[in-house]
């Protein structure tokens, strides 16, 4: 029974393998467990579409993809919806008229600036600008989780209830976003398919994905400006 007896050696190898298995179970549980584990559970892959179709109560959309939250006091908070953000991608700045200026429903209210080109967005309501979100205008964020929290301007209007009739809410808002998406996806190039397989949407904006050189034209088509 020398330690080099091939039968002993083989048995030792098997025993070592079994010992490994026995130790591996606690090791695995230890390594993959822990206090922060819950936070690190892989979340289900969430496509941007889910966000895009979600329109909170109290929010109304304009066909130019601006949103408005109307208050009973005659004041409206305005912003751009998630579709518009994904369409144009990251922005350098948003130009808006000064406080006190007047915006008109369906007329350009603010200007998106990405590279050298700009695209106007239409105002969902008519009224006088009473407040501007300077921070957001100067450095527009990209996180679409809080799209309807990040407003651009507040407008005081005497005829909000009239304007509201031109806006889409709830089911019709969702349908509107759905059809916008369908129109957009029909224009997607195979390259965007490749990007999708990469697991995401182009945050540079679908418009640029569709036509690099003329992205502003594409954007205007959807933003109706």
């Amino acid at each position, binding site marked *: 029974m020398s330690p080099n007896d*091939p039968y002993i050696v083989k048995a030792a190898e098997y025993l070592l393998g079994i010992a490994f298995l026995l130790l591996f179970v606690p090791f695995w549980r230890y390594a993959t467990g822990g206090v922060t584990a819950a936070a690190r559970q892989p979340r289900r*892959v969430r*496509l941007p*579409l*889910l966000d895009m*179709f979600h329109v909170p109560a109290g929010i109304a959309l304009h066909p130019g993809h601006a949103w408005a939250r109307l208050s009973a006091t005659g004041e409206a908070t305005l912003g751009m919806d998630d579709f518009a953000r994904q369409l144009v991608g990251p922005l350098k700045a948003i130009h808006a008229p000064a406080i006190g200026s007047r915006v008109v429903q369906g007329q350009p209210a603010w200007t998106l600036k990405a590279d050298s080109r700009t695209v106007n967005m239409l105002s969902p309501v008519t009224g006088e600008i009473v407040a501007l979100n300077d921070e957001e205008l100067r450095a527009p964020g990209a996180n679409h989780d809080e799209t309807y929290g990040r407003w651009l301007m507040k407008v005081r209007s005497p005829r909000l209830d009239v304007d509201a009739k031109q806006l889409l809410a709830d089911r019709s808002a*969702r349908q509107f976003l*759905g059809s916008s998406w369908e129109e957009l996806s029909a224009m997607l190039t195979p390259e965007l398919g490749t990007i999708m*397989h990469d*697991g995401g949407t182009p945050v540079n904006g679908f418009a640029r994905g569709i036509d690099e050189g003329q992205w502003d034209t594409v954007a205007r088509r959807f933003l109706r400006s």
Partner: protein
Amino acid sequence: MDLTRRTFFKVGAIGAATLATGGRAEASAAPGVAADAVGMLVDTTLCIGCGGCEAACAEANGLPEPPSLDEETLALRRTTDPRAFTVVNRFAVTGAAEPERFVKTQCMHCVEPACATVCPTRALEKTAAGPVIYHGDRCLGCRYCMLSCPFDVPKFEYDKPAPYIRKCTFCATRQAQGLVPACAEMCPSGALTFGTRAALLEEARQRIYQNPGKYVPHIYGEREAGGTSWLYISDVPLDQVGLKAGLDQEPYPRRAQTALAAVPMVLTLWPPILMGLYALNANRRRDEADPTEETRHD
């Protein structure tokens, strides 16, 4: 080294499939080597340490003249080098009438040489006739042959900006002209016998049988490293005269061949496995995208 055979088969661990194919990858001993391949028998009992073989070798290969085998030179344990393809060393022995033996070393010209097998460019080549020859114009200078040779034979011209591997060629060019190797031609004592390997094995056996008690009953090179073209017999234990003990009896290249047998298996099986994983994940992603589709059409 009784473990060798077992470990040899286990190289297949890198690919289970290897076990099925690897061990039998090269069942016949020496692929492409003729049955009448040449060899050389060195009878260490006959060598007188004259150094004639060294001088003849140097002349035949255009090498610098070797030192004469005086007491000063023989006191050293010399090795072959880029300027000396063969050297004769003196060994003090115990338990024999004569207190010393002279033993010539050079390339053993293995039947299945490690150096030729490991060479990425076939710069070293085992010829069907027996010699292991060298094509310098292909040599990268990677020196893997030096690392692989169980007899430490290939030597490298470290001192040159454009270096080559140098070693005994068994006088392959002389042999092609019908001449015997220079060392054997010169040897005055009959210590070197040139012939076919098969015949020399027979000759060695006869010498051992016909002189009972004289020789150690072992032909060094018959099985060492899977067999070598150069064969040694001795009247003292072989490790006393500098012949390396403990070498594999399997040819060393077999180890590499077993590992290499995994290559086509990996090439063939990995892509479908990986694409399968990819497809599984792609499907999963599509499934997770589905709820969106419903939302869209509600």
